[in-house]
Structure formats: structure tokens, C-alpha cells
């Protein structure tokens, strides 16, 4: 029988092997071409995210799901803490021209997409980033979820046929006016992007005319983007969450301790107590926020060093022009992002089976279809998985769990819905919510409201489902 020591030693060996593998990959990339250091940066930031997400049990699905299902504010608070630090760093970077952030089209589509994503993340048992780190823990359901995200998206952005009858004429007219290559406008999603989304305004509070005139220099980033778009709403949300989910239990204990009267000071203690209730989650929230900001700084630095604005330019220099969209670009977010690269992976696989995945805007024009080993954002996702794997091995939490029964359905369905809820918003819980809110883009909150709404309905469904199962189990007593 294996002893605890043997298991621990074996886990450590595996942790070293995984880390060593990534170091080897990095060295091979450097030897192949110094331009690949751009990819290597994504790998190691992904690795760092993976370790922190696993250690802090950091999952955006948990933020709203556990609030509604179990009344536990741990993760919601952790995310708001991360937002706090990330937004301050984003403002610092923006004010020094070291930011890669860009706002996204603002519209009702963002809210609707968020709702679909919110339902999906509850069914799947984790958001996009959460599913990746849980794969690192050995969670087979999360593998199915990511497969759902990958292939669901890839098919969604390419499928036309009868769906084209649902395209409004206004979208067709607007798309035609842009004179894009006709052979790339073949799917419902192509018209959605070119005829609707691209026409929506992009808002970054610091760049709103009245704001940039009233707040000179760096002030506009700190006041508008950080304070108004992120810090104040986050502080309000923390107070609201405390009031509805934490206050009653805390004040009851505090009143008992003090023998009766409580005051405002106790309320502040209650809020602080809620924030520090899960030290590992809150600590990881702080570090994730700082790391996400550092990631932007480093990517911008790499772009300045190589004299580029997109990794596609480096691929072209290295002769890999087949990887690119017709604009000469590939998907290169310049910061933490999930789902787009999984969609590229799904499309790459489908292409192997003869499906033309370049006859659309998403892959054919904007993001290209690089080979997976030349896809920087996809390497970031692999980094997240490996980082989480190393952390879970070292903490003896790694266990490969094969999904069975209903978990297969929830994983695939949830992942597919997450894919369908991220593409139309051009991002997921990370790209469409976390990054945008911290960067001064109010559409981030629109997506967040959608996610929470969708999660509410997802939890309602699971409550009903589990009630049925419990009733069956309790029939005998």
C-alpha cells in the first residue's frame, strides 16, 4: 500500500516534470527564434494564473453561483478585490502609454451574451478560466466543458445556411457598405459582427470628450477608468453583498460578544471580516490583480521591443503567413483572455477533417488560424492548466476524475453555452468582464450583470434538479 510519503514524493516528481517540460519548451522556442519569446511570456503568465487560480479556488462562476446557491460571498469578494488592484495598475499603465487595453463595442448584445454565459458556467461547474484550472486538477468534466467551448464557438462563427434567413436586412446593408471580401462573409456571425457589432460605440471613460477635457493627464485614467468604473462600483457591491449575505450572522455573533449594542465600527469590522474570511482567496485576488496588470506591462514592452502591435507581424517575419487572417493579424489580446483561443483550437481540429474554417470574419479576417504551437493565447491557456496542475500536485489535490452520467451532459452543454455566450460579446468572464471593468469600459458591467442573471437561473435549475434527486434518496426514511 502506498504511504503518504510515497504519494507526496510522486506528486513532487510530477510537478517538477511538468515545470521542466515548460522550461524545455521555452528554451526550444528561444533557440528556434528570439521572436518566440513573445509566446514564452504568455506561457509563463498563464502558468502563474493557473497556480493562483487553483490555490485561491478562484472561479467567476462561484462568485454568483455560491452566493445564490449557498449564501457564500467568498468568491464574489475575491473578484472585487482583484478588480480593485488590477484597475489601479491598469490606470498606471494607461497613463504611461504602456497599456494594451482596448474597449469593446457597447450594446444590448453584451448583456444577452452574458446571460447565456452565466447559465453555461453554472451548468459546467466553472467559468472559462475556472474550467481551465480545474482541468489542471484532473477534472474530466471541465475537459468536456472546454471542448464544448472550443467546438461550439468554432461552429457558431462559421455556420450559415438556414441561419442566414435570420439576418436582419439592416445588418446586411451595413456589412455590404464596408466592402469586405464577399468570400469571408458567409455565416450568421459574420453579418452580426460586420453589420451590427462593429457599428456599436466603444467607450472607455477616460476617452470620453467631457472627461478628458475636465481631467488632464494621468488623472483621467485614475478617476474615470479606475475610480468611477471600477473602485466605486466594487465598493458598493461589497457593501450590498455584506448587507444581504453576511451582516445578519456577523452582527448576531458581535451583539452576543458585546452583550447588546453594536455600532458603525462593528459594521466596518463585519465588512473587513467578510473580505478576510477566506484568506487564500483574498490573497490570491490581490496577487491575480497585480499579475494581470504586470502581464499588460510586459506584453506592451515586448511589442515596443519588437516594433509590432500584433504577433501576426512576427509570424510574417518568420515566414508563417498561412497562420494569419487576411489583415495580417492573429488573435493576440495583449493580456489575460480566454475562449477566443479555444475557438481557434476547435477550428484547427475541424480543418483537419476538411471543414473550411477560414471562410468567415472571425478566423479568416481578424484572428487567423495559427498552428496551435504558434498560437500565443492558446499557450497561455495551456500554461493555466499546467500551473494549476503543479499547484494541485504539490497540495496533494490532483485526482483525475472521469465524468460520468449527468456530469457529461452538464459539462458539454455548459461549455457550449459558454462558447455561445462569449463570442457575441467578444469575450468571456475574463475578457468581457474582468479586463473591461478594470480598464474603464462600462460594457464590462453590462456583461457582468448578464453573467449574474444567467447564473441565477442556472442555480434555480440545479436547485430543482437536486431537490428531485434528494426526494428519491429520502423515500426510504
Amino acid at each position, binding site marked *: 500500500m502506498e504511504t503518504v510519503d510515497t504519494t507526496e514524493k510522486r506528486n513532487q516528481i510530477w510537478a517538477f516534470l511538468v515545470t521542466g517540460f515548460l522550461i524545455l519548451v521555452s528554451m526550444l522556442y528561444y533557440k528556434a527564434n528570439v521572436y518566440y519569446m513573445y509566446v514564452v511570456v504568455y506561457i509563463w503568465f498563464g502558468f502563474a494564473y493557473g497556480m493562483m487560480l487553483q490555490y485561491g479556488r478562484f472561479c467567476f462562476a*462561484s462568485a454568483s453561483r455560491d452566493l445564490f446557491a*449557498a449564501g457564500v460571498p467568498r468568491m464574489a469578494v475575491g473578484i472585487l478585490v482583484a478588480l480593485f488592484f488590477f484597475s489601479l495598475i491598469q490606470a498606471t499603465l494607461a497613463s504611461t502609454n504602456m497599456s494594451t487595453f482596448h474597449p469593446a463595442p457597447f450594446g444590448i448584445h453584451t448583456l444577452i451574451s452574458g446571460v447565456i454565459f452565466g447559465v453555461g458556467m453554472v451548468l459546467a461547474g*466553472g467559468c472559462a478560466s475556472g474550467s481551465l484550472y480545474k482541468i489542471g486538477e484532473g477534472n474530466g468534466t471541465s475537459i468536456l466543458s472546454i471542448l464544448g467551448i472550443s467546438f461550439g464557438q468554432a461552429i457558431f462563427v462559421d455556420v450559415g445556411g438556414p441561419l442566414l434567413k435570420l439576418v436582419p436586412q439592416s445588418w446586411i446593408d451595413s456589412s455590404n457598405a464596408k466592402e469586405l471580401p464577399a468570400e469571408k462573409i458567409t455565416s450568421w456571425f459574420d453579418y452580426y459582427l460586420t453589420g451590427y457589432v462593429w457599428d456599436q460605440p466603444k467607450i472607455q471613460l477616460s476617452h470620453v470628450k467631457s472627461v478628458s477635457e475636465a481631467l488632464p493627464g494621468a488623472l483621467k485614467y485614475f478617476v474615470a477608468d479606475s475610480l468611477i468604473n471600477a473602485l466605486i462600483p466594487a465598493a458598493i457591491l461589497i457593501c450590498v453583498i455584506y448587507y444581504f449575505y453576511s451582516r445578519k*450572522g456577523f452582527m448576531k455573533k458581535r451583539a452576543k460578544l458585546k452583550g447588546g449594542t453594536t455600532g458603525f465600527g462593528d459594521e466596518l469590522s463585519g465588512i473587513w471580516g467578510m473580505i478576510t474570511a477566506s484568506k487564500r482567496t483574498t490573497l490570491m485576488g490581490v496577487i491575480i490583480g497585480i499579475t494581470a496588470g504586470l502581464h499588460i506591462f510586459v506584453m506592451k514592452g515586448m511589442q515596443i521591443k519588437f516594433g509590432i502591435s500584433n504577433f501576426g507581424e512576427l509570424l510574417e517575419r518568420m515566414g508563417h503567413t498561412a497562420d494569419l487572417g487576411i489583415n495580417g493579424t492573429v488573435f493576440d489580446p495583449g493580456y489575460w483572455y480566454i475562449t477566443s483561443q479555444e475557438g481557434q483550437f476547435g477550428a484547427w481540429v475541424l480543418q483537419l477533417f476538411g471543414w473550411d474554417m477560414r471562410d468567415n470574419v472571425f478566423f479568416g479576417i481578424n484572428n487567423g488560424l495559427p498552428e496551435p504551437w504558434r498560437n500565443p493565447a492558446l499557450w497561455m491557456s495551456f500554461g493555466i492548466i499546467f500551473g494549476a496542475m503543479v499547484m494541485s500536485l504539490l497540495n496533494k489535490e490532483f485526482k483525475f476524475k472521469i465524468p460520468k452520467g449527468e456530469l457529461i451532459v452538464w459539462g458539454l452543454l455548459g461549455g457550449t453555452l459558454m462558447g455561445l455566450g462569449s463570442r457575441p460579446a467578444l469575450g468571456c468572464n475574463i475578457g468581457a468582464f474582468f479586463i473591461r471593468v478594470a480598464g474603464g469600459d462600462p460594457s464590462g458591467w453590462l456583461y457582468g450583470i448578464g453573467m449574474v442573471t444567467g447564473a441565477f437561473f442556472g442555480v434555480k435549475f*440545479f436547485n430543482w434538479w437536486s431537490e428531485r434527486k434528494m426526494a428519491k*434518496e*429520502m423515500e426510504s426514511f
Partner: protein
Amino acid sequence: MAMKFEKTGEGTYMLDVCGYVCPHPQIYCKKSLEKINEGDILELVIDNPSSAETIIQMCDQVGHEILEKKNEGNKIIFRIQKA
């Protein structure tokens, strides 16, 4: 893999949700605690680390006492007394 909830003795119950991932363990744990009586003991067996974090906080907020929490291999076993 199947959710198992059974009475193991007078005022003691066992809930086994091994194999389940978030949010099932915490939902089933909450529902089980709602169904048993005050003072009853629930032995909860899970193997999903992130659910454990939520369950600990859930119990703390409501006032249920975690009498014991132990790791057996990859399993996490709680003994919870309903408040």
C-alpha cells in the same frame, strides 16, 4: 458515481457526493442540512477541493458546527452538526 444520502443511525446521516464537481456538493450539502433536525450530525464525503472551501464558509455563516474535517487520500470528510 451517484449521489448517496442515507440515515446511518439515530440522528446521524451520511451524504456521499464523490465524483461530483461544483456546484453539486455544496447544493446537496445545503439541502441535506435543511432536511435533518437540529443537533443531528451529517457526515459529508466529497472529493472536490473548491466545494470544501464553500461548505466551510456556508456552515460558519449559518452556525452549523464542523466537528471534524479530515482528508483520506483525495477525499475530504466533514462531520457537521446542524445548528
